[in-house]
């Protein structure tokens, strides 16, 4: 009886082996970067970088472009052009062209989320111009454009210079009704690829941009800072009244740890209190004042807080003008007010008129390494 069972299992093992689809590493083409662009007549252009491994010990990166009605159609066409089957399991970054972003990123998002091969932790970014330009561009010092873009976004997200744009977070924000996406914009500047700023979204359409310096305030309102860095220009008379107000006082702070809380104080007029607590270290001060004195530190703290408050108000104002709730105030409202009957449309009518009161508390823990 036991032998009979054993033989049955053995036969199953041998027969079922045929059901497993093998994808041997060097016998497939691996894409690391995928770009979507909008063409005329609602067609989609897909650009992919494909890593080809050849037996003479060298691997090359080539790009393939195709235009079809759907992104899946382009994939079939790409397969027709490559010697080995193209697999997307190692995909790291998806770039979406400016035009396509403005007409809506829903399609590429859905397409990639439904593909079980593709991990949810890959990055999603907007190309300034077209994705094709960036991917197909000739670069002297970049051998693998896919890896380069991935590393660019990755290290900036790690050091909190940019909003984290993983596919998971983008899809979450996209499907949540009271919260909008802010996705980094990648720009090609001749030979250099850089993060230009943030694209603001309303639902799934891109409506505006923020500069890269404003990204700091976006992260401060959306998230916590573990170790941020910031350079500020304070009015000249902050420390000594003899100085002229127009003279600028440059201040650099780092090791910023911030914590924020959003609170709805008035549901009828829609008024939010935004409390931000910042702990930081002073590393640069273009002044001869003795920072060891508590009074000077107090003054500085106040001035920095005022400056940050001003900037926060300005950034929020921009998002309100574009009507893109990237901070999730809608979620706070929805969570605070019972039976509000809030819908996506209602919130988009309410958001531009909401009143925001940013309050910042700064504490300088240490004043630099040298005194």
């Amino acid at each position, binding site marked *: 009886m036991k032998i009979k069972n054993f033989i049955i299992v053995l036969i199953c093992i041998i027969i079922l082996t045929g059901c497993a689809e*093998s994808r041997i*590493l060097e016998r497939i083409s*691996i894409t*690391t970067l995928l770009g979507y662009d909008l063409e005329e007549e609602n067609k989609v252009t897909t650009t992919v970088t494909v890593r080809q491994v050849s037996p003479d*010990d060298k691997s090359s990166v080539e790009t393939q472009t195709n235009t079809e009605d759907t992104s899946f159609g382009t994939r079939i066409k790409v397969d027709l052009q490559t010697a080995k089957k193209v697999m997307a*399991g190692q995909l790291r970054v998806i770039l979406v062209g400016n035009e396509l972003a403005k007409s809506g990123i829903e399609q590429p998002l859905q397409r990639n989320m439904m593909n079980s091969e593709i991990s949810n932790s890959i990055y999603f970014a907007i190309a300034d111009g077209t994705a094709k330009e960036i991917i197909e561009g000739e670069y002297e010092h970049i051998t693998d454009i896919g890896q380069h873009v991935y590393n660019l976004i990755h290290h900036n997200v790690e050091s909190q210079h940019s909003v984290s744009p993983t596919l998971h977070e983008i899809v979450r924000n996209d499907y949540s009704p009271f919260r909008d996406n802010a996705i980094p914009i990648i720009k090609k500047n001749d030979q250099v690829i850089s993060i230009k700023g943030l694209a603001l979204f309303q639902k799934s359409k891109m409506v505006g941009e923020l500069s890269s310096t404003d990204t700091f305030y976006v992260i401060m309102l959306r998230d916590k800072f573990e170790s941020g860095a910031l350079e500020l220009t304070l009015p000249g008379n902050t420390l000594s009244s003899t100085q002229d107000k127009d003279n600028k006082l440059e201040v650099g702070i780092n090791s910023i740890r911030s914590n924020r809380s959003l609170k709805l104080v008035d549901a009828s007029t829609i008024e939010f209190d935004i409390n931000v607590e910042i702990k930081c270290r002073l590393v640069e001060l273009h002044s001869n004042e003795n920072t060891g004195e508590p009074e000077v530190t107090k003054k500085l703290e106040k001035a920095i807080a005022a400056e940050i408050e001003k900037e926060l108000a300005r950034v929020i104002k921009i998002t309100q003008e574009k009507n893109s709730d990237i901070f999730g105030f809608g979620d706070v409202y929805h969570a605070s007010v019972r039976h509000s009957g809030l819908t996506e449309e209602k919130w988009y009518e309410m958001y531009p008129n909401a009143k925001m009161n940013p309050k910042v508390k700064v504490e300088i823990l240490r004043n630099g390494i040298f005194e």
Partner: protein
Amino acid sequence: MFNKKKQDKEKNENKDQENKEQQQNEEKPKHEPISPDKNQFLLDVKQKLHSPSDFIVRFVSDNMTLVYVDNLVDNKMLNEIILTQLHEVEEIPEAIHLKLSIPEVDVVNELNKFIGDMLQGAAIVHVNGYDQVVVAKISAYQSRGLSAPENESQVIGSQVGFNENLSTNISLIRRYITNPNLCNEKFVLGKQTKTSLSVLYIHGIAIEEYINTVKQRITDLEIEDLIDSSVLAELIDDNSRSIFPQMLLTERPDRFCDGLLSGKIGIIVNGSSMGILCPYSFIEFFQSREDQNLRWPIASFIRLLRFFAILISIFLTPIYVASLTFHYEVIPQPLLVPLSESRAIVPFPPIIEALILELIIELLREAGAKLPTKVGQTIGIVGGIVIGTAAVEAGITSNILIIIVALGALSSFTTPNYMMGNVIRIIRFPIILLAGFWGYYGVMIAVCILFIHLLRLTTLGAPYMAPFYPPRFKQWPNSIIRFPITFIQRQAVNSRNKKNDSEQSGKKVSK
């Protein structure tokens, strides 16, 4: 499982009765009297022994005859004591028995019995006119001197190993444990070889149930011959068809005694330099006696290293095969390029590549073990370097796999027990096959089957996976890591003697 045990027991009991009847039947014709006549006596003995060339007959006087088998007796004792004293004594067996000044003398009146003694090294004195003989046991075994244990060497600790002599081995153990409670029960196994073996345990520490099980399993055996203790271990363990050993074979007296003192039962077989210890659980195979000799953080580190090595040895090659065949998604980006470049010239799928390389390394190991020591090392180095480099350059394997396979082979040798080390090395092959067929699913299936098998195994009826399943938290301080000795229970996992529990906890080492 347990029902089956019961049935077995019942069967065994039935067998016992049958055996006893058989034995009685056999013993009756065996009782042959000794002829009082000198010549008839010699004829009888020669006929029994089929006139061997080393059978020696000496006529001490007209009436007294001395017979023995050459090389089995101590010649010095024979000449200096027996021969001189026989001349001075009255020619009656009883008188000789009293007169001879050697440790073991007997008077026997049965042919088969004294022939058995003679073959173990006794000199027989026959006096004309009496149907009794005097048996003087002056055996001298040729045995190897005590030497350091070769297979289980350790840096810190005693450097003596068992040899092939039963009495020497037992004396070694008695030197370690000077305790009247150390019990020694003798058995004889093998119709042809009549190999004697001793079952050793410490009364009051070892559990009665296990002692009875071991004794019953030994007495139930009906075998023609027994040359080595490893055969006995396989015959009496719970599941002989399993790949995992359920009893420890050790050549270290200190490990053996450590086992006895922690409540295990030991078996020593004459002619074999390996002692058997049982019950032995899975985790104990990976613990070394040396762990107790080192400081506890170091011992813990080495133990952790050993368990990590097992995981590497079993799973590293299958994971390589599975990742490259099915799951290219999980390969980290920095590894992607070197991996695919080194694989690019290899014409085989990863499973064939891995199997070829694993086979090569097994061949090298086997050749190294069988060749004479001096040649063996050369073959190992030449084979390793030449075949390894050539294989990569010829494009048969990738160089990353060479590292993985070598690491796996190296890791399997860290297991302190050779038997278990072999198992670790062999079970890799089916897992590689499954990984090549089904990827990580295959590896997971293999892990499941492995765990099901290990959990079902027993050692003398005690759970093999103790102290993890069933969980026995008191034993955990001495499992994967070694806590300081004061935290450790002296008794082994499966030898908890309830009678002694209260006593035992008070017996912990205290400062």
